[in-house]
């Protein structure tokens, strides 16, 4: 990864953009840390997949987008929702299962949506969102718009049929979709090399979709490379496949220890010490005298304060009404016929 990072690293961003990216990553890190804490004390239930370590992917891939562009993701999507513009309060309230959450508490950690800002959901079945992204991109193509759709997937998803079917169709119709693999090297606890004979770039190439590898631990190169890719797609370059190489500092989900069975403590420690996207950017900026430790501290305090407020909001927010269970299963209640068969009257 270090080789790649050198190859793709560009320090052409201005100070303002670097500060924006730094602030974004601090917000995502503090959000996920708070989510982890709240999960540990039982405020958040179910599955909870944290993005800690991969913040540069959310910041670097989503910051280049316009509001009317689309993002669709996996179940590891809290920070991507924030990056696309969903309010931290609403995301945290959804994790808490509360009424003002993004889905009124009916979605949970894996299903955060923000359709007003083009965030088309977290999806829980590995690979399923690739086909949905294909359809979103079809919608853009159908209407002749110049938006793009960014679809995040994990490295393990490239072995799903949905991956191959989607890339093939995206290629034959030249759709404006970017499949961005958050390649954190492990599909849950299985190293990619154990489950694939070929490199993932070969898989995309076999469908005629160009592949690029970018350094997802370095937000400056992620942002710079992704900005270029987004503009190409906006100009009609057709579908792209991006292997965003990154590393997950925490377990696959909250129930998975950080290290142990499938990766060593040393490996994780090495990455957290040497490839933290936040310290990487801060160090770059210190070196170029674009940032002082005091300024960093201040930014961090700001991020913590936003998250503190989000958590307080979620904590005090009301539970959803039992009646809301049935509200959105169908978009409307037909005047005729029965839609529900559980015999309960709400």
């Amino acid at each position, binding site marked *: 990864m270090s080789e790649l990072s050198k190859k793709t690293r560009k320090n052409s961003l201005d100070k303002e953009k670097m500060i924006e990216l730094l602030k974004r990553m601090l917000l995502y890190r503090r959000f996920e840390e708070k989510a982890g804490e709240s999960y540990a004390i039982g405020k958040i239930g179910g599955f909870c997949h944290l993005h800690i370590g991969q913040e540069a992917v959310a910041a670097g891939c989503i910051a280049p987008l316009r509001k009317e562009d689309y993002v669709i993701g996996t179940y590891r999507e809290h920070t991507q929702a924030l990056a696309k513009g969903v309010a931290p309060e609403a995301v945290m309230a959804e994790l808490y299962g509360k009424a003002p959450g993004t889905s009124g508490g*009916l979605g949970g950690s894996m299903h955060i949506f923000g359709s007003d800002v083009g965030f088309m959901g977290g999806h829980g079945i590995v690979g399923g969102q690739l086909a949905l992204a*294909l*359809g979103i991109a079809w919608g853009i193509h159908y209407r002749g718009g110049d938006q793009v759709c960014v679809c995040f997937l994990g490295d393990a998803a490239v072995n799903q049929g949905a991956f191959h079917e989607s890339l093939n169709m995206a290629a034959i119709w030249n759709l404006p979709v970017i499949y961005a693999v958050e390649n954190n090297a492990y599909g849950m606890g299985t190293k990619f090399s154990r489950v694939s004979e070929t490199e993932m770039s070969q898989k995309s190439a076999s469908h005629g979709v160009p592949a690029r590898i970018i350094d997802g631990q370095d937000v400056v190169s992620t942002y710079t490379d992704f900005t270029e890719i987004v503009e190409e797609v906006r100009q009609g370059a057709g579908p792209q496949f991006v292997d965003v190489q990154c590393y997950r500092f925490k377990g696959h989900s909250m129930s998975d220890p950080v290290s142990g069975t499938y990766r060593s403590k040393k490996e994780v420690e090495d990455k957290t010490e040497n490839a933290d996207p936040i310290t990487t950017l801060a160090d770059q900026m210190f070196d170029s005298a674009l940032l002082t430790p005091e300024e960093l501290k201040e930014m961090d305090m700001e991020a913590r304060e936003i998250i503190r407020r989000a958590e307080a909001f979620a904590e005090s927010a009301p539970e959803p009404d039992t009646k809301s269970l049935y509200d959105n299963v169908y978009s409307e209640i037909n005047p005729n016929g029965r839609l529900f068969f559980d015999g309960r009257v709400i």
Partner: protein
Amino acid sequence: MAEITYRDALNQALVEEMERDESVFLLGEEVAEYDGAYKVSKGLLERFGDKRVVDTPISELGFTGLGVGAAMVGLRPVVEFMTFNFSFLAIDQLINSAAKMGSMSGGQVTAPMVLRGPSGAALQLGSQHSQACEAWYLHAPGLKVVTPGTPADAKGLLKTAIRDNDPVVFMESELLYNLKGEVPDGEEFLIPLGVADLKREGGDVSIITHGQMIHVALRAADQLAKKGLEADVLDLRSLRPLDVESILESVAKTNRAVCLEEGWSYGGVGAQVTSILMEEAFDDLDAPVLRVTQADVPMPYNKRLEAWAKPNVARLVEACEKVCYV
């Protein structure tokens, strides 16, 4: 009113709805240049072009997901399965994406779309190509399921399904495509979902059925009439929403019910209807509700065994006589 085939009725519905609403498009295998495997989409490519009539690769999961994604951003896809047997490759997108989208997004995103094609057995196509698929999709809240059995119902229900704001699973039948029937004229000929149709009025026994089985039921009702028993043939038409009121009304009159369906009995449509009758019409019943279904086996190829495995007129007549104690 013109007499047209079930196939042409579907074709008319597609043409009219595509003319009316530019966000409607059709995609699936062989729908464009080939005119559709069963010619339902004949002439549509020429009329609407290849952006709105789209030949896909044989990738059911992928193109169904494409439909759901397109619906998520406001288009109204009509996804054709060459047969519903192939829809199982796409069941993840139907159940996990389309059916749950509204609920899991808190109503932010919905999937207004139609998933259509033939379901049920034709003749000697063997186990993988001969199955009624309703029960798989009925099970999931969030989906609607429609099964027209006549040309008029095919047209009126398909038009309504395309305009509906939820994902509608629309099941046709290979054996019905050539069936002719009167179809009302007019672009606003719409049949609401959730309204059953009493295809024959009797009074002695209620045959509750749907899809191509209504024709078996009507033949059985003719035979029963000769034996002095008059049957209500209630065509459910849509299975979700389900016209429970009409079921209860018929059974309140006849006090006897037989559920006829093409699919398997275990967890099937008749099981649900029977359960509703137990819960809501117990006092009206003079006999246990019976079900006539496909044999509980994968469909055999052998012609004689296939005929035996399918629900048929003789078996239905027998069941009706049994609930009438004759």
